[in-house]
Structure formats: structure tokens, C-alpha cells
């Protein structure tokens, strides 16, 4: 049992196990979690020859350095990722969006996610990880999910319970594009803000702050003035909601968000733009553009069709 595993030589900055997340638990304080960039998560699994909902390893900024021990196995890395495959004494620059075969003793060194935040590593087969409420997604805040709800640490092992013996390699021609314009629907407290504040929100640039993680993205920019109340009665939050606390700087709720919050909601990022949003690094510029519900729904259909199209190109 479990004779195939990775040794974690370096854990990376924020390396966790993720899948599609867990549903229907917001009312007890447990958010969805799940892979931040859903498209790159799906593509990683498809390239690895897996079902699309399998657990993968998500990393941010600097990823892990892993030494593989076991039988031959295929892996795939997606995102905008700079990584090296160390085979015996050779160092080979890795390519994203194509599977590669690891042998006993090989090392994968994920150096950086370049000018993005999140990348994904899928193994062809099954990671031996704990599921809670039908999901392995690690929620480090509530210590739920794989790895006892903690991020990966150096010197631990990642066990593999099943290897897919089909070692045919798969490839996709795909380049991540970066966007600055994030489309939003006006929030339920939009009228809490002054005329100038609303103009600032839709016309000025904001900068992504360093204080951003899987829970939320903080932004810095011209203060958005509140003319009604800087607090509301605490109410539910969902991912993509943009709250503006008293300091006037927006905070966008991301996948591990607190489920209840008491700051006014100025807007919500549309579902079609979420994957691109989470990839914006600290220091990046961001600009909000208003769309209505009907447009957001159409844009989501297009986003989903493109996902399906990309997945279907991987044979």
C-alpha cells in the first residue's frame, strides 16, 4: 500500500489540496473553498487523464519542490508556471499544459507562478487524501479537508493511492491571458456610497494589496466615501462580493471567505471573471466595469463553453 509518494523537500508558500469544493455548508460557517482558478484546475485533471473533479495540488507564487518515489506516473501542471524537472543530473525546463512522465527519483521544482498567483499540479491517478463533506479541499481557517486542514509542510509525504497505468501524454495549446478590467454587478448597498464614491469605483484604478490570500483580496486606491452607514447588520457573504469597510478600500471575498460579514456591499464580481480575478498579483492594477445581470449570464455561458471547448481539445 502507498508505495508511491512524493517527498516534500520544500513546501512552497501556500500549497494545499483542492477540488471543486464543498456545497451547502455556508449556514454553519463553512465556505465552498475549492480550486481558486477553476479553469486551470479542470484542465490539469483532463491533461492527467483524470475525472474532472479529482483532487489536485494547488500552489501560490513559489510552489513546492517534490521528489517522486514509486512506479512511473504521469503528471500535468497548469497555470503560468516556471518549473524544472530534475532527472538524474539533468535539469529540464518544464512546459505547462502538457503531461510528462515521472520515474523513481525524479524531482519537480516549481519555482514560480511568474506574473500570476495560482498554479495546479495533477497526478494521473488518485492522491491519498482525506475527504470531508465530499471534498478534499483544504480550508486552513477551519482546519477542514486534506492534510488535516493545513497547508503542505516540508519533510512530509504526499501519498498516491492509485496510479493510472496509461502513460500516453496529452497536450493543450493554451496561453493564460491577464485582464485588468473586472466586470461587476452593482451590490445590494450600492446607494450607501456618495456620487463621487460610485464614480471612483467604476472609473479609477485600484491596486491589489499584499494582504490578499485565499480568503479575500484587498484593494488600495482612492477612498470610496460612504454616506449612509459604514456597517450593516451582519448578513451572508458569497465569493466575489466586494465589501467596503469604513476605511473606504474595497475587499473582494474569495473562495475561503468568512460566511457572514457586516460591511456594505458595493458590488459582486461576475462568475465569468472570477478565474481571472484571482490570478491578479499584489501590485496589479484592477478596474471595475459595470454589467447587468443578463450580460453576466451570457458571459458565463461563453466562459463555460470555452471551458468545454478546451477540455474537448485534450484527447
Amino acid at each position: 500500500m502507498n508505495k508511491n509518494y512524493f517527498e516534500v523537500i520544500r513546501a512552497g508558500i501556500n500549497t494545499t489540496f483542492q477540488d471543486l469544493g464543498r456545497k451547502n455548508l455556508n449556514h454553519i460557517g463553512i465556505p465552498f473553498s475549492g480550486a481558486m482558478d477553476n479553469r486551470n484546475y479542470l484542465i490539469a485533471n483532463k491533461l492527467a487523464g483524470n475525472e474532472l473533479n479529482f483532487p489536485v495540488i494547488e500552489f501560490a507564487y513559489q510552489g513546492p519542490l517534490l521528489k517522486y518515489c514509486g512506479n512511473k506516473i504521469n503528471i500535468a501542471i497548469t497555470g503560468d508556471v516556471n518549473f524544472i524537472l530534475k532527472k538524474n543530473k539533468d535539469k529540464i525546463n518544464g512546459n505547462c499544459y502538457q503531461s510528462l512522465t515521472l520515474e523513481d527519483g525524479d524531482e519537480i521544482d516549481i519555482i514560480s507562478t511568474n506574473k500570476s498567483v495560482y498554479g495546479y499540479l495533477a497526478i494521473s491517478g488518485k492522491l491519498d487524501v482525506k475527504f470531508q463533506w465530499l471534498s478534499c479541499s483544504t480550508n486552513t481557517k477551519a482546519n477542514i479537508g486534506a492534510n488535516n486542514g493545513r497547508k503542505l509542510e516540508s519533510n512530509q509525504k504526499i501519498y498516491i493511492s492509485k496510479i493510472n497505468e496509461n502513460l500516453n501524454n496529452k497536450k493543450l495549446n493554451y496561453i493564460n491571458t491577464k485582464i485588468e478590467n473586472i466586470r461587476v454587478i452593482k451590490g445590494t448597498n450600492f446607494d450607501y456610497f456618495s456620487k463621487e464614491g460610485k464614480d471612483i469605483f467604476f472609473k479609477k484604478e485600484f491596486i491589489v494589496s499584499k494582504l490578499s490570500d485565499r480568503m479575500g483580496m484587498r484593494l488600495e486606491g482612492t477612498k470610496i466615501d460612504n454616506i449612509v452607514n459604514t456597517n450593516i447588520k451582519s448578513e451572508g457573504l458569497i465569493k466575489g462580493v466586494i465589501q467596503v469597510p469604513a476605511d473606504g478600500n474595497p475587499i473582494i471575498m474569495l473562495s475561503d471567505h468568512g460566511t457572514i460579514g457586516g460591511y456594505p456591499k458595493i458590488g459582486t464580481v461576475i462568475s465569468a471573471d472570477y478565474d481571472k480575478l484571482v490570478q491578479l498579483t499584489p501590485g496589479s492594477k484592477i478596474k471595475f466595469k459595470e454589467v447587468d445581470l443578463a450580460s453576466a449570464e451570457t458571459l458565463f455561458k461563453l466562459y463555460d463553453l470555452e471551458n468545454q471547448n478546451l477540455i474537448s481539445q485534450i484527447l
Partner: protein
Amino acid sequence: MIKNISNLGDAALYCDFGQEVNKETNTKVIRYFKSIQKKNIIGVNNLTPSYNKLIVSFDLKKNNFKSLKKEIENLDILNSETLSSEKIVIPVCCDEDFSLDIKRLEEKLKIDREIVYEKFFTKDFFCYMTGFIAGMPFLGDLDKAMRVKRLETPRVKVPKGSVGLTEQFANIYTFESPGGWNIIGNTPKDIFDSSKEIKPNLINPGDIITFKRISKDQYQNYNE
């Protein structure tokens, strides 16, 4: 009973039950929450009830705002849909190591600490909602004489098990977490247990909670 349903983004319904925060409004929210939960509506993947709002999230691949709104508006909220509420007693120790803000409470409320404790421990609380962090219950209502604002500077770390007060509400920190509530004591009881997939939360919306004062000795020897 819902005053207005609007969209929160493109994949959630924002059901507004009014501005008031009271048991009556919250009971309506909970009844809708439980009725929708039982219905298993296509695509609904999260329900977030709070004092006077209910957010219904859905998978945009499977449903959309317009049709889900119609479905919720026409939903039968059965009168027989009684809330299955439990009565739960939570042991709390107010030793000085745990009652972190008792001095502040005495000063702000201008009453002696023993009266603060007495008012707190003789009160029946109603659970309005759970969340923010996993399992944290929001309980009300404190008497008018017991209401204080949050700390001016929130603590970076509130210890697990801390029982806090703010305005008309009490809560329990199920994990060590940042927070600004006035800490009156600490419970040794596990309020959230993630190893239980069926009922990880000890306290659920609609439950009635009372706190029972225990000594430090009882706290240290506490056995579930």
C-alpha cells in the same frame, strides 16, 4: 413573507425580510431556510441565513436568477413547518484568565462584575445564525443594560472557546480567531467538531441557549 428578492451578483438570490433584527423576523428567515433546504431545488448549492436576510446561492450552469426567484416566491412555507429547536446549556468559566474584558464591561456598563455575571447567566438566548467562522453562534438578546460596543482595537487572537458580547448579542469563538467582541468567559465544551460530518455544530439557528457558570476546577476537569 419575503419583502423583496433581488440578485446578489449573477449566481445568488438576496432575500430581504426587512430591516428589523428580532426573533420574529429571524424565525421567518429560518423557516424559509429550512423549507428550501428540504426542497432540494435544482442547482441550489448554498443557503446563508442571517438576522433578517437569506442568501440562496446556485450553480449558474443549472439554474438562473429569474426562474429560481419564481420558484422561491411560490414555495409553500408550510405552517406545520415547526422549527426543531433544542435547549442547550453551555458551561462557562469566568476566572480572570478567561474573563478578559470584565473590567471594561464593568466600566462601560457602570455595574459591578457580579451583576454583569448574574444578568448573563440568568438569560435565555436565542440562536439567530451561525457562521463567520465555522460553527460560531450569534445569540440574542442581551438586556439593554448589558449592551456595549466592540473593542476599539480588535484582538489579533481571541482564544478558542471565548464567549463574547457586543450590542444585543453574545457569541462563542469556535476557533482561535481575530475578533473585537468583549470577552466575558470561556467554555471547555466543543461547539464545533469537524470530525462529525452529520452534526458538526452544537448550536443551530432557532436553538435556545443558557450559560452555566463553572469554577476553574470544573473547567480544567471538564469531560464531555
